[in-house]
C-alpha cells in the first residue's frame, strides 16, 4: 500500500456537493458526455462510474487523466460526488526533473570521455587542433571585409585574442540546459498539479449545474 502523500503526486481526489434531491442517475447523465471521447471506456452502475483512457485526444477535456472512479455518496448534508482520478502525465512530469538531472550527469561523462588524454598521441592531436584553430583565426583577421558590408556599416569581424573567452566553442555540450529543464519540469509539475485539480473540479461543477 503506497502512502497517501506519495500517491498525491499523480492521484487527484475531490468531492462536490450535488443539488439537494439530485439523483445518481441524473448526475451521471450530465457527466456522461465527458466519457464519450476517443480512447475512453467507461463502466457505470447505479452509484459508481469507472473509466479508463488510452491515447486520449489532445483536446479531450480530461486528457490528463488515464482512469478513475466517480462515486455518489449520501451524506447528512445531501448527495456528494466523490472522485478519484489518476494521471500518468502528472507522474511523468514529477519524475522528469530526475531524468534531466541524469542527462546532465551523462553530458559530463560524455564530455570527459571525449577530453583528450595525456598520452603523447593525444597531446600531439590537441596541439595540432590548436594550431589549426589559430591559423583559422589569423585567416579571418587578415580577411578584407566585403565592400558592401563596409559601406552598410556592419561591424568588422572579431580580431583573434580579443574577448576570447566570450564565445569559445559555445556549441560544446554542457550540463546547464539539463539543469534548466529539470527546473522547468519541477515548476511545470507544480502548476499542473494545482491547475488540473482545479480545472477538473470546475468542469464537473459546470456539468452538474448545467440546466
Amino acid at each position: 500500500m503506497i502512502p497517501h502523500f506519495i500517491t498525491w503526486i499523480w492521484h487527484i481526489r475531490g468531492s462536490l456537493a450535488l443539488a439537494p434531491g439530485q439523483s445518481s442517475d441524473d448526475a451521471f447523465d450530465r457527466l456522461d458526455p465527458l466519457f464519450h471521447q476517443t480512447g475512453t471506456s467507461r463502466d457505470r452502475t447505479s452509484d459508481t462510474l469507472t473509466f479508463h483512457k488510452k491515447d486520449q485526444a489532445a483536446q479531450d477535456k480530461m486528457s490528463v487523466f488515464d482512469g478513475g472512479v466517480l462515486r455518489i455518496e449520501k451524506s447528512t448534508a445531501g448527495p456528494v460526488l466523490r472522485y478519484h482520478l489518476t494521471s500518468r502525465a502528472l507522474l511523468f512530469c514529477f519524475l522528469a526533473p530526475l531524468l534531466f538531472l541524469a542527462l546532465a550527469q551523462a553530458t559530463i561523462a560524455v564530455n570527459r570521455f571525449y577530453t583528450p588524454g595525456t598520452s603523447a598521441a593525444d597531446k600531439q592531436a590537441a596541439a595540432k587542433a590548436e594550431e589549426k584553430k589559430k591559423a583559422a583565426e589569423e585567416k579571418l583577421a587578415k580577411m578584407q571585409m566585403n565592400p558592401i558590408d563596409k559601406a552598410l556599416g556592419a561591424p568588422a569581424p572579431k580580431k583573434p585574442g580579443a574577448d576570447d573567452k566570450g564565445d569559445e566553442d559555445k556549441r560544446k555540450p554542457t550540463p546547464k540546459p539539463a539543469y534548466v529543464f529539470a527546473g522547468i519540469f519541477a515548476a511545470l509539475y507544480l502548476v499542473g498539479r494545482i491547475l488540473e485539480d482545479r480545472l477538473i473540479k470546475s468542469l464537473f461543477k459546470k456539468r452538474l449545474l448545467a440546466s
Partner: protein
Amino acid sequence: MDGVRVGNRVIGTQAPVTVGWENIPKVEGGPVKRFIFTWFQPAALLALVVFWYYAPNSIAKASTAIGIGIGFNALLLVLEWVNPRYDSWRLTWKELATDLFFVGLGYTVIHTASYYIGSDAWADAALNYLAADHFGWFMTLPLLVQALLILFIFDFGQYWMHRGMHNWYPLWLPHSVHHYITQLNINKGAVGNPIELFLIGLGIGGFFDFLPRAFLLSGAIGMAISTYQHINVRFNSPRWWRFLFNTTEHHSLHHSQDYESTRCNYSNSLIFIDRMFGTCIDGEAELLGMEGGRRMSIREQMTYPFTEGWKAIKGRLDPARNWPAAGGGNRVETAPHV
C-alpha cells in the same frame, strides 16, 4: 470524399483539406489586429536581420541567439493564445509538458549526439583525414548572401532527407512519430523520435567556412521563417512570403490525416525548393495526424520505430507478408482508434 485534383494527384479523399490561397480564411477582427497579424512576420524577420547585421561583436554571440530564441518562442505562445488559427489546436498543460519534454531532449541528448557524432564532426574528421581545409569560397561574399547560402545549403539537404523519410520505409519509421501530432503549436517541431531529430539535423554545412556573424544571421532568419511551420496562429502572410517561405498553411497540409496531402511541402524554411521540384501544394488542413488522429504517448513515441521496425523485419522474412509502404501509405486500412 471526392478530393481536389492538384496536378497529377487528388488530395483530400481521406480527410478534409483546403486547397488554394483564395479559400483560406483571413484574420478576423478590427484594423489594428488585422494590421498586426499581416505584418508581424515580415517585421520580425527584418528586425532580426538588422539586429544581427549591426550588433557589436560583444553582443553578437551564440548566447544572445539562444536568449532571443527563447524570448521569440514566449512571444509566439502569447500570439497563439490571442489569435489561434483553430480552437481545436489550443495548447493544454499536457500538450505543453509533452512538447517541452522533446525541446529538452533537443537541448541535451540530441545536441550532445550532434556535436560529437553529427555531420559537422564527420565533415571535420573527413577534412582532417584529407589534410584539407574547410571550403572558404564564400567568406568574402556580403554577410547577407553568406547567411542565405547557409540557409539554402541546410534547407536543401533537409528537403531531400525529409522527402527520403516519406519514401523509404527505414527512414519513415523514425519520422512517422512526428506525424502522430494532432495539432500544431510553437514547440511541436521538436516532437518526434530522437533518432529522426538527429537525422534531420544532418547536412553538408560542416564542409564550408562562413563568417561567424553569417551563421548567427542565418540562424535568426531560419528561426523567423521556419518557426511558423508549427504554430497555432492565423496570419495574413503576404503573397511574396507565401511564395518563398514555408508557412503554417503549407505545413498543416503536410501533417493532414489525408495520406496524399502529406506527400508535399517537405522543405524546412524555403518552400520555393518544393516549388522547384514540383512538391509544393498551397493549402491547409485542420485534422492532423495518423490513424484517424490517434494521439501517441511519449513512451510509444520512443519505442515505435523499433517495434514497427521489428515487425517489418519479421514480415520481410515471411514471404507471405509485404514490406510496409513509407509515408504511412498503408494507414487507410487502419481503423480509427475509438
